């Protein structure tokens, strides 16, 4: 297993290299110019050109790419064109809020979606099943920002239970931390919950028709034991897979959610960097997201072996 994990980690290097080349090329050919944004609306073309030169943006593609790769190989993601701060420091500032949001969303999803899917499969065809699946379709159909605004209106403005916006680090206390994350996590989690609930139901339906389930029932095992110990464990592989794939959904959704709830996370940093054409920051974030995605896939593969001992690498 350990050698497999090491092999997989090594295998991520060419993936990351391709991502790096792709991102760099894409930004190079994309329209837009950070020097224009920096110079301001009233700047003369000469001012813009001088800023471009001072940033090294007038150098040939290969020179810029070579120097960027050289820095990456030395563990330096570069410096933001706009803030003059190291990209790694900017990512560090924003990692906490995004990570918090994703963890709370992930936990919320697992706690809500898996039992819903199990119950829907257990009561397949019944009113309960239809209500749960109706909710799943609803959750899937609503854009994150619509859910976000609705939640903020009801729970923040009308009921005044929770804040509208912002982020408080965990070091300031658990409730202040959680208080700011509840609404964003529900908004972000809606699609994810719907997806996981549907997959859980489908996987459970298949497992519940297996002979060993009938045997378990015949032996007089309780419903809870059958569903959550025997059936769910055997249905876990597709559920774990979709939870893993859903991380990509979360990353994409975080961009919108963080804007709606004014959470200073990586999603907002991404949007700001793209709108300003802050190339080093965009490159750093995309590399990070790619790495996280590759890592999550690796973790899923490892979890497979835990939920299904027949799987060996």
């Amino acid at each position, binding site marked *: 297993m350990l050698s497999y994990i090491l092999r997989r980690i090594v295998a991520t290097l060419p993936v990351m290299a391709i991502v790096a080349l792709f991102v760099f090329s894409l930004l190079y050919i994309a*329209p*837009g*110019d950070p020097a*224009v*944004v*920096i*110079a*301001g*609306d*009233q*700047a*003369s*073309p000469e*001012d*813009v050109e*001088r*800023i471009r*030169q*001072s940033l090294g943006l007038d150098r040939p593609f290969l020179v810029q790419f070579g120097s960027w790769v050289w820095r990456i190989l030395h563990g330096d993601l570069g410096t*933001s064109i*706009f*803030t*003059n*701060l190291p990209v790694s420091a*900017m990512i560090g500032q*924003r990692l906490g809020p995004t990570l918090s949001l994703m963890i709370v969303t992930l936990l919320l999803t697992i706690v809500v979606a898996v039992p819903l899917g199990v119950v829907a499969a257990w009561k397949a065809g019944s009113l309960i099943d239809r209500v749960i699946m109706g909710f799943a379709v609803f959750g899937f159909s609503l854009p994150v920002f619509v859910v976000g605004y609705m939640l*903020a*209106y009801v729970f*923040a*403005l009308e*009921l*005044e*239970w*929770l*804040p*509208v*916006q*912002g982020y408080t680090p*965990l*070091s*300031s*206390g*658990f*409730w*202040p*931390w*959680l*208080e700011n994350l509840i609404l964003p996590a529900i908004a972000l989690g809606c699609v994810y919950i719907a997806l996981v609930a549907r997959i859980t139901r489908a996987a459970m339906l298949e497992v519940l028709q297996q002979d060993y389930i009938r045997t378990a029932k015949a032996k007089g095992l309780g419903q809870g034991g059958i569903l959550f110990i025997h059936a769910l464990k055997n249905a876990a592989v597709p559920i774990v897979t979709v939870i893993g794939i859903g991380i990509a959904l979360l990353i994409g959704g975080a961009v919108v959610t963080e*804007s*709606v*709830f*004014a959470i*200073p996370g990586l999603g*907002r*940093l991404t*949007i*700001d960097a793209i*709108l*300003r054409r*802050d190339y080093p920051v965009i490159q750093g974030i995309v590399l990070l997201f790619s790495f996280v995605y590759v890592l999550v896939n690796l973790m899923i593969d490892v979890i497979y072996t835990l939920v299904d001992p027949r799987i060996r690498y």
Partner: protein
Amino acid sequence: MDRRTVLKGLAGAGGLALTGLSAPAIAQGASARTLRFVPQANLANFDPIWGTQYVVRNAAALVWDTLYGIDSSLQPQRQMVESEETTDDGKTWTFKLRSGLKFHDGEPVLAKDVVASLSRWAARDPMGLMIIAIQQELTAVDDRTFKWVLKQPFPKMLYALAKNNAPCSFIMPERIAKTDPFKQITEYVGSGPMKFAKGEWVPGAKAVFEKFTDYVPRQEKASWLAGGKQIMVDRVEWIVMPDPATAAAALQNGEVDWWENPIADLVPVLKKNKNISVDIGDPLGNIGSFRMNHLFAPFNDVRARRAVLMALSQEDYMRAIVGDDDALWKPLPGFFTPDTPVYNDLGGDILKGKRDLDAAKKLLAESGYSGQPVTCLVAQDQPITKAQGDVTADLLKKLGMNVDFVATDWGTVGSRRAAKTPPGQGGWNMFHSWHAGADCITPAAYTAIRANGDKAWFGWPNSPNTEKEITGWFEAKSVDEEKAAIGRVNKAAIEDVVYAPTGFFLTYTAWRKNVSGIAKGPLPFFWGVSKSA
């Protein structure tokens, strides 16, 4: 006890058990000493000379002081300067600094700091460049005195040093001011009324300013950038909110105290809230505009440009931007900010009265327009440019023009508008923008009115008459002379259609009623603003 308190109690107890961390107790007094402000945009960098965005200028006005400050009557007033003298020939200016001025690092403000700061500023500022062009020397005479010797008089010297248009001539310590003006500074040490808390800066999310206790305000009453800048709170927190709906909700919920520029759509909601005050933020407002590319057909022919002016309805543009609130806009038959001392709209008849589409079509045909595509750049991520772009597309179609509507983002427009290639090869025919009224009072900082061809702003208008009249304004010695010169500039610029003004519009600002002392002006002034618990 309400639901929220119960939830807080339960979760707090659980959380404390889990983490062992204690929640901070923020006293009422501490909260009242912190003003939470939602700025117009993200403070992405903090060098007011290197980056000339308005948001940077607004933040910089807290941290760095200026030699002179413009007041609400648009007159330059002494700020860091105690006195000034000019020789009879107007070529030598000698300035003396106030005593007791200190930078945030405790060092005194010296004349050598001023010399370095003015040199860096002048390299980036249109008026500064005019001074450099006639400069003989700029030197420190002693610790508190410096001298600017020119080869010819520059009557607008004090205005240049006081103006609020970016870049302002902020004074920095010499070691910082010696930074190349095209490179960003890394230390944010000023002598203004607040210090920048660099450690708490999260670009794109938050910037914090703390009261500078050693600041010595002037004795005069504060008025815009002039007078005694008395800071009434300990901290000012700038909280960046990219989503206007979120900012509106946060203001209603009491999570922020002041929102610089609520969008027109949300103002009715804010006005209904009994805890919120809403008023015009900047009486100098904004001038909507679109620019035509003077280098390429069809707009290289003045008749085509005039045809567009004849047909355009400023009311259509203004309603698209501000909605149905008539208090927020007015027609503008010219290029200069209305209701200012030197305003003059001489020659603006083409923009007044009923629009004559038939005459415009006839004039367009005379210009030789034969149906070629008109590439119209419209940034969709800026509500003002998007609204104007939609109206322009409709206008051009009514004129029988073939519109190539390029829906894109502001970053792309900003880059593409610099291209001097033909529209079909990456260039353009039109793009939309708007100008802060504070920049359009006179030609001093009004880049968009310049018509010196290749050196002009995007669109590269070439109108020797306009340029001649602008020079006339710089030489004017009294308000009456200035006003007459402005009229002549307006007339010449309209005749040659330097650009198309789409009207004058205002924006609101909104704050919670426990905040007082907010002054109307071209930027948010934090001096005199206090907050009760």
